[in-house]
């Protein structure tokens, strides 16, 4: 148990160490001369960044530098495609694609010798041919980090480092200087909208839960990030778990709840571990418990793990699952604010929504609302994926155009391919075609063009992707994940998928496309929960912007050459040198021909696996 004063002492003591983790920072006496920050997000740890981190520590100790140079395992830096990543401060040297053994060279040449290891630095140069420092790179320049402010800066498993970033000061401020209603009003005034997808006003949600009758209430955090290709929530939980805990405490105070539940995907072992560590440390410091920070309030948190069901991201299904039942959605109303977890009034917000709360309380609603567009305030975190040079996690002000995200931050499509479309909102969203690349991203604009903000997955597709195939991919996902409770979703989506399957096989007619559209609207209007109501969106939006591709399929052609039933592999007799490599590699012996003779593919036997085309040394086999 720490008193308010003791907490403040920790902040004061550690603050210089955190602020010195910046480019060109002046290092004060008694602080480490350098800091090596190693990314410990899921992407980089998959590339062995933990071993890299341990190697740094061992090597520094060997050289007796363990007190002069501090090594910290942080949360996600964001630039996952260049991982594993490490940054050395105050130099701002940005190392990418590191291997565990590279620690030796960096310690000997850079830390001891004073010269950064150029071959390992991020190779992005300015117009003068100088390597750019981390904040000047295209990837980071257009970003603005509010939610992710501590990711890649602090050690998420050390509560003291969080305290040094004014951690748990927002809660103190709320409880000691604001009434419950004032906290709610501040959130309302900020214009913050739910970051989980639908974009409902967060302040209103808090108000409804506050106003609901009942003495026992719950605060829940939706960390069931199931949208394939999205990892915003995971990165925040991995990089700054205390920020979410503190926000839930503030929400608990505002709505009058003493219990908090974080429902998190079991597929996120690192996030679960860091949350467990953070909750343990907060309890030890008396920040969670019967008398929070000695301020006379009670609040504690527990984790509930998901078990792999996408529908549990829907708030009422989440409640059922957190109660240990099948995660089927409930009829609304009553809304969770009135009747939620175990029948009690419950506030449910998404991880990223909580990520904004402490900053709104500390800096004020006006500060928050100064960023963004008229109806969408603040920033949004996106997980960039798919056909981009720079894949990773970005946070941008609302109103940034898709072009800035794709071309500047994302670095465009690799191999000079043409940008075709971006999918936002995952299986519930829609695609944005290249003609709308200058759309400023906010809730209302995305809705107007038939997509949605969603939780923040943003997948880029290039000319090699077939939009019908992509729509089918998303629909297969939702059909698989439909809980089966309501008929429009369970059967409607299944029928829709069958029709889509016909399209990809070239068996559909133009009338079928109209029927599909009609069915889409039927499913949207009649499904019980958000999963069903949004499931046809990928089909509708691709039909809207890429109808020509659908029509081409009806005429027996897949323009991108993806749909297997509509492609056939051919050998170009002018290029074939009869080397027999293709025939030897064909898994079904569909290729015949003798040495130095042109080979032929038997279309009846061919399974269109594409091995022959990838093995041909002369590029003689094409679709």
């Amino acid at each position, binding site marked *: 148990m720490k008193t308010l004063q003791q907490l403040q002492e920790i902040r004061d003591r550690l603050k210089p160490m955190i602020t010195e983790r910046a480019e060109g920072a002046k290092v004060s006496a008694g602080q480490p001369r350098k800091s090596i920050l190693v990314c410990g997000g899921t992407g980089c740890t*998959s590339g062995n960044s933990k071993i890299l981190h341990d190697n740094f520590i061992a090597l520094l100790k060997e050289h007796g530098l363990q007190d002069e140079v501090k090594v910290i395992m942080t949360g996600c830096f964001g630039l996952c495609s260049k991982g594993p990543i490490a940054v050395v401060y105050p130099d701002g040297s940005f190392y990418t694609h590191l291997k565990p053994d590279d620690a030796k060279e960096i310690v000997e040449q850079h830390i001891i010798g004073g010269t950064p290891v150029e071959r390992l630095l991020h190779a992005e140069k300015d117009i003068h041919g100088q390597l750019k420092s981390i904040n000047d790179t295209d990837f980071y320049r257009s970003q603005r980090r509010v939610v992710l402010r501590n990711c890649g800066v602090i050690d998420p498993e050390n509560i003291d480092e969080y305290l040094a970033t004014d951690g748990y000061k927002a809660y103190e401020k709320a409880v000691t200087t604001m009434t419950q209603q004032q906290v709610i009003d501040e959130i309302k005034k900020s214009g913050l909208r739910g970051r989980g997808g639908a974009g409902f006003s967060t302040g209103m949600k808090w108000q409804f839960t506050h106003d609901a009758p009942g003495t026992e209430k719950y605060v829940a955090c939706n960390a069931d990030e199931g949208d394939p290709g999205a990892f915003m929530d995971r990165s925040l939980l991995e990089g700054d778990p205390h920020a979410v805990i503190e926000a839930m405490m503030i929400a608990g105070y505002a709505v009058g709840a003493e219990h908090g539940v974080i429902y998190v995907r079991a*597929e996120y072992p690192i996030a679960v571990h860091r949350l467990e560590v953070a909750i343990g440390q907060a309890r030890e410091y008396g920040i969670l418990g019967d008398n929070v920070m000695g301020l006379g309030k009670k609040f504690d948190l527990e984790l*509930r793990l*998901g078990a792999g069901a996408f529908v549990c991201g829907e708030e009422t299904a989440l409640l059922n699952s957190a109660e240990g039942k099948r995660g089927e959605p409930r009829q609304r109303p009553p809304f969770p604010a009135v009747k939620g977890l175990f029948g009690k009034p419950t506030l449910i917000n998404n991880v990223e929504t909580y990520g904004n709360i402490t900053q709104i309380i500390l800096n004020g609603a006006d500060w928050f609302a100064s960023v963004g567009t008229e109806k969408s305030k603040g920033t949004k975190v996106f997980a960039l994926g798919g056909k981009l040079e720079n*894949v990773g996690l970005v946070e941008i002000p609302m109103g940034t155009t898709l072009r800035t995200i794709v071309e500047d931050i994302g670095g465009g499509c690799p191999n000079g391919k043409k940008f075709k479309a971006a999918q936002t909102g995952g299986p519930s969203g829609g695609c944005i075609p290249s003609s709308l690349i200058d759309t400023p991203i906010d809730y209302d604009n995305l809705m107007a063009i038939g997509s949605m903000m969603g939780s923040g997955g943003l997948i880029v597709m290039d000319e090699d992707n077939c939009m019908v195939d992509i729509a089918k991919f998303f629909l297969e996902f939702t059909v698989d994940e439909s809980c089966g409770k309501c008929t429009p979703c369970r059967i409607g989506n299944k029928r829709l998928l069958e029709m889509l399957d016909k399209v990809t096989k070239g068996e559909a007619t133009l009338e079928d496309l109209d029927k599909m559209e009609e069915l889409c609207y039927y499913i949207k209007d009649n499904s019980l929960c958000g999963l069903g109501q949004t499931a046809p969106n990928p089909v509708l939006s691709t039909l809207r912007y890429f109808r020509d591709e659908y029509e081409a399929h009806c005429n027996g052609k897949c323009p991108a050459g993806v749909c297997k039933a509509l492609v056939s592999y051919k050998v170009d007799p002018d290029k074939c040198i009869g080397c027999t490599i293709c025939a030897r590699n064909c898994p079904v012996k569909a290729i015949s021909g003798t040495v130095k003779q042109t080979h032929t593919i038997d279309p009846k036997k061919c399974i269109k696996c*594409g091995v022959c085309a990838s093995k041909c040394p002369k590029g003689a086999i094409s679709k």
Partner: protein
Amino acid sequence: MTDEKDMQFAAVLESLKDVPGPVMMAMQKAQDIYGYLPLEVQLKIADYFGVPLSTVYGIATFYSQFRLEQPGQIKIAVCLGTACYVKGSGGVIDKFSRLLSVEPGHTTSDGRFTLEATRCIGCCGLAPVLTVNGEVYGKVTEDSVDEILAKYNEA
């Protein structure tokens, strides 16, 4: 089922006695212990918490995480999240399926390999991604399938 596992399992049930909504947590912990949820374990959970077996079975079949069959020694999980899919993980899982003669979600008849299609595992920067017994392989191609299988077939 060994006695030691049974004892661990009994302790888990005991620890959840006063927790509200305990059934799913008990099942998750039981699967950690046994590797899957055999019928007798489901029965024990149902009895202990006083719910019908159909409730436990209903939960087990609702969530993709729960397994009703004993998994193979080597678990290959190919990510079919969007980022991996647009970069070709569909072809990768097809190739495993073809070479191992097993459908995704099932185990080879010799009990060695379980092939699974997983949702996004979150390292999209390495797409396409797969894991073999938890070890991550990033930027895989259809060619890497042969190398990966060769490595585990030797071992």
